[in-house]
């Protein structure tokens, strides 16, 4: 192939000087061998061996350093030193076969992976530690069926429970939902469906609300509700404070979902002469239903775990209180907080068990939200599709009856 090179280029030049037109390069004399497609995505055996070898030698070197050479100790230090040694050895091994950019690439990838692993490890450690420390209290059924009204701080775990906090949390979040769902959806529809000038103002207010420190929501409700209006601390006040925290989350995620509703659905509805509110009510909102449910669940997951606003306005009690308008009302995060502030081991264990209940609740809500979010906007489930088909058939009958069957 190389031999042909000079003659080909000179031939091309000659032809270019003769006439200015399209220049067709001459065929090479020898046929080119068909190229084998290289698999660039596959991890080769060498890569795996290099990785494993670096890990092994890093761990053993670190054990040598910690056990024999220096008086270092501690788990965090061990992991950090081992990782640093791993990086060095890995870079060395890779540099045996690769050039400098490839070595840097591998080392940076290892660093990114390490960051993600640290994040995962932190989550596992938070969840695992809470469940582990709360295990003895979690397994007692009375935790879920009794309140703390007759239980002293020295009583064993077999007595007393957190029913009052569970009931309180349900009531507070339920009340907050009554406020935030209509308001939040209305805000999202306003932001997405109207062309009003106020939109940018509303959007920046919502953004600023997202950033409001939770303790300030509590302080605000405390100032207005308790100091200025003169009501006592109650579940209702807590619900208002929680609403302030939940509203921006619901608005923002609902707005994102509404934006995904296909424009041609809206246009089809408006083409049939429907006014805007009918378009929103019968087309946009049903289309985005699963995403909106997801938005509300995210709001609930945030609201149920908020401690700081509730701390100031709901008051602390150890009995079940189902009246949100009067008397203090307990909630799950507040119960955790009160339990772990005590020095008694039994109470601290109860605190961990309560935290585990709260965390499992939030995780379940989150999983449900992800299941809803998995379905794209506008795609119907089987049952919804059947219902739509039934409605369409009924409409067709109705139209047939009116027109005497001409349309079908």
């Amino acid at each position, binding site marked *: 192939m190389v031999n042909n090179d000079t003659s080909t280029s000179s031939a091309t030049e000659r032809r270019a000087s003769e006439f200015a037109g399209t220049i067709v390069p001459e065929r090479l004399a020898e046929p080119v061998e068909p190229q084998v497609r290289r698999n660039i995505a596959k991890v080769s055996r060498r890569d795996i061996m290099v990785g494993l070898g670096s890990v092994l030698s890093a761990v053993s070197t670190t054990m040598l350093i910690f056990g024999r050479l220096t008086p270092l100790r501690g788990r965090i230090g061990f992991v950090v030193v081992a990782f640093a040694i791993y990086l060095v050895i890995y870079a060395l091994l890779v540099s045996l076969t690769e050039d400098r950019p490839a070595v840097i690439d591998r080392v940076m990838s290892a660093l990114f992976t390490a960051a993600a692993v640290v994040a995962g490890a932190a989550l596992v450690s*938070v969840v695992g530690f809470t469940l582990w420390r709360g295990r003895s209290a979690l397994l007692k059924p009375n935790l879920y069926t009794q309140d703390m009204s007759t239980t002293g701080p020295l009583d064993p775990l077999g007595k007393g429970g957190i029913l009052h906090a569970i009931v309180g949390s349900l009531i507070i979040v339920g009340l907050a939902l009554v406020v935030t769902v209509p308001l939040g959806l209305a805000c999202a529809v306003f932001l997405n469906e109207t062309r009003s000038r106020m939109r940018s103002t509303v959007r920046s207010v919502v953004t600023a609300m997202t*950033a409001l420190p939770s303790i300030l929501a509590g302080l605000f409700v405390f100032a207005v509700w308790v100091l200025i209006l003169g009501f006592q601390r109650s579940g209702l006040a807590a619900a208002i404070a929680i609403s302030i925290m939940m509203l921006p989350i619901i608005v923002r995620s609902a707005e994102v979902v509404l934006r995904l509703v296909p424009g041609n659905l809206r246009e089809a509805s408006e083409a049939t002469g429907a006014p805007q509110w009918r378009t929103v009510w019968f087309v946009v909102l049903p289309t985005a239903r699963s995403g909106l449910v997801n938005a509300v669940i995210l709001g609930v997951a945030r609201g149920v*775990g908020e401690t700081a606003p509730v701390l100031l306005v709901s008051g602390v009690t150890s009995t079940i209180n189902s009246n949100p308008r009067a008397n203090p009302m307990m909630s799950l*995060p507040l119960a955790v907080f009160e339990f772990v*502030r005590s020095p008694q081991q039994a109470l601290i264990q109860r605190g961990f068990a309560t935290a585990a209940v*709260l965390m499992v609740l939030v995780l379940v809500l989150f999983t449900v939200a992800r299941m809803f979010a998995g379905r794209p906007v506008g795609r119907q489930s089987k049952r919804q599709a059947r219902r739509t088909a039934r409605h369409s058939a009924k409409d067709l009958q109705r139209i047939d009856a009116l027109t005497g069957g001409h349309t079908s």
Partner: protein
Amino acid sequence: MAAVGLFLSIEAFDAFRSEGFRFFTQTAWQPDRRVFGVAAVLLFTVLIALIAVAIALPLAMGTALFIVEVVPGWLRSTFIAIVDLMAAVPSVVYGLWGLFFLQGQVIGLSRWLTTWLGWFPLFSVSGDDPTSPMSSGTVYTASTFIAGIVVSMMVMPIACSVMREVFSQVPPGEREGAFALGSTRWGMIRTVTLPFGRGGIIGGTMLGLGRALGETIAVYLIISPRFDINFHVLENGSNSVSSLIALRTPEASGFGLSALMAAGLTLFAMTLVVNFVASIFVARSRSGAGSEA
């Protein structure tokens, strides 16, 4: 929103009139003796937030790049779920974790830092000689450093999800162009992803900073409050505006409440400014354009 600012200002008026500008320079907090100021509290708040961001920023960037560029497709949704779940865990649970689990692990690290980096004022600790075999770990407990680490765990997922959004919007044409020119993955990230996502990185960090400034319960559980100017972040005792409010509001009355409202107003103004700057960065950058439209 306006109502929050308005009512806080009304309630705080008394305190501001009584102290004037001294409110920002005094360190003690004794409203009943009419001697109070946010200087120390504010300093600790900022220190905790800075430590949190300093830890969370590399973690969040690494995780975001890992999710967008490195991880194989079938694992990607798992890691996105992990980050989302970290954001969803209630802050009181993080507080428990920090108080009962992390504190014991970090004391050794604090001792090591002050032994070897103690010449740097930030890491020096008064009242303990780390070389003495008799020294106990108590002087390192309940410190600004530990509170900062715990808050960083809460800040990380927020910053990470903003960065992930922005990084995943990098135009595929530019990415593939870099690869076609023979770039490695890191070369592509350095020349395409990071410059494109600069606004998202800054904005996400600022959002995290705003969250870190306002974090209450976890900080409250970990620190033991103190009211003096102290830059020794590894040392026992710290404070923050929000935990001050949580600590004193239930027992405060009249004028004391007004002083707390003034502190709350200061925090409110600070977070508002931080978040405003963050939204400007996100909106101005090339990367923000796609996410808002």
